[in-house]
């Protein structure tokens, strides 16, 4: 412990940056797809969802990392779930108290953060074997990587499906409807979220050839 590494060493920064691009939880690890399909009809709930997941992930990562020497391996999943569930209930109650409308829109999906594969995945793969600070950064990084994809998908779905951005009627203001344009009803349905995520994966892999699996 004599040579302490700086808080933002290059190794730690990598923990933050990798999930945003080459190790993105949605487009590369393909985790947490279900909620990406469910909450991305509009931008506002997507951003709240992204923040909630980031907070739950970072907090659970820190707690599990602190307890990592005391958790008996055979019951570690139960311990992890208890921690995640506690954090999710905290976030859920907070949203109900301070952002009731969004909380109602997200409905059951806040509670379902418990089952988000990204969180269990990071606890198993990272927090159980690393110190609290790197675990915290890993949580923030993966949460942000998840959030970015959610927001990109929600942007296109809200713009093309409802013609609005954050509820602002953009297409109506620039007069698109007058020349015969119509909102795309398919964008609001879940299949289009899947296709949008697919297109993001396609674009990302054609820019970064290392990500293409060869088999």
């Amino acid at each position: 412990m004599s040579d302490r590494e700086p808080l933002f060493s290059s190794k730690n920064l990598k923990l933050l940056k990798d999930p945003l691009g080459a190790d993105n939880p949605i487009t590369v690890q393909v985790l947490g797809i279900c909620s990406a399909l469910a909450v991305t009809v509009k931008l506002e709930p997507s951003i709240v969802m992204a923040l909630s997941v980031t907070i739950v992930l970072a907090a659970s990562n820190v707690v599990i990392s602190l307890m990592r020497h005391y958790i008996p391996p055979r019951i570690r999943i139960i311990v992890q779930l208890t921690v995640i569930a506690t954090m999710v209930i905290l976030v859920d109650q907070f949203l109900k108290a301070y952002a009731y409308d969004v909380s109602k829109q997200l409905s059951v999906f806040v509670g379902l953060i418990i089952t988000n594969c990204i969180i269990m995945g990071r606890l198993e793969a990272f927090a159980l074997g690393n110190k609290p600070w790197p675990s915290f950064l890993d949580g923030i990084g993966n949460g942000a990587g998840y959030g970015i994809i959610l927001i990109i998908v929600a942007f296109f779905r809200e713009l093309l499906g409802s013609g609005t951005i954050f509820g602002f009627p953009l297409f109506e203001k620039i007069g698109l409807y007058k020349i015969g344009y119509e909102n795309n009803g398919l964008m609001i349905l879940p299949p289009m979220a899947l296709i949008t995520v697919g297109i993001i994966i396609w674009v990302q892999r054609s820019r970064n050839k290392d990500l293409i699996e060869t088999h």
Partner: protein
Amino acid sequence: MKGLRKLLDSAKPNFEKGAKFGKLHSLFDALETLAFVPNRVTKSGAHIRDAIDMKRTMIVVVLAMVPALLFGMWNVGHFHFQALGQLDQKTFWEIFWFGFLKVLPIILVSYVTGLTIEIIFAQIRNHDVPEGFFVTGFLIPLIMPVDVPLWMVAIATAFAVIIGVEVFGGAGMNILNPALTARAFLFFSYPSWMSGDKVWVSGLSEMDKVADGFTGETIMGMYAQAPAGVTPSIPYSPLEMFLGTIPGSIGETSTLAILIGAAILIWTGIGSWKIIVSVFGGGLLMGYILNLFAVNPYMQVDAWEHLLLGGFAFGAVFMATDPVSATQTERGKWIYGFLIGLLAILIRVLNPAYPEGVMLAILLMNVFAPLIDHYVVEANIKKRKKRLQASNS
């Protein structure tokens, strides 16, 4: 012809690799092989010798669709003037010309959008421009309601070519039938333009008043919209349904024109007669099953009448037989076609949200086609193994 050959020969060196227009090689190649059967030989891998190549095959399919298209054009004019109540003042050619001018832009938009995207992908991925779109671009207009806005046709075509075909690696690798992908995209994206009682007759939604007693509703729509227990009176006779003077998508109404196409496809061996026959068989069986229960007027419709309605015949002949998305094994073709017919009528009659089930039935079975093939092949292996064991013991 000789002049064209000379022109192509003199232009060819410019399109070789590394030459001035080297990047456009696949575009030049596509045009050259469209005009002349190529004189190259396949260099590697297994290949099949046949008298006709892909481009000639596709042209036969397009020819088989021409009767349905021509009839569709006439039918567009027929219903437009009938709605206006001017039918008896118009000559045959006036009616046809009106429909021709309505349908031609849809065909052009479909081809221009699709081919542009195909050519761009061919340049980027450095392969030849595939022939598949030749047929897809012709199919798309035939399965559209005549009043569909052109920009929607363009978007749907682009979606079908990019997400339906190119994502999977180009023509021949697609899971779903691209033309039906385009239609399904429009159906779920812009339902008000793809269903209802206004879209099937040209200009009906903008007419202030229509002729007495005229309705642009399809026959399936009439049954689906009828109040519970009431048998709707259908103003069309079975003969009219067979000839095709009923409202519907542009090319789907005339069972007669479609059967002419089917004869061409079967005679040239391009379309599988097994699929066509089994789709009709499946539909007929489902019709009879529904007749047995017959708890509402729609279920009492004669089984054979279902085969004349909507896109059933068109789907059976031109969509289900698409060699890429259908099953490959001979026994698989029977199962695949039979289930399409069965499901199409089942969805049509029992699901009020979808007045026509043919599109969804074919797309669903497209997805299951590889699975059917897998089990047919497995069953064959098992049978042969048993025979081997029997002969060994």
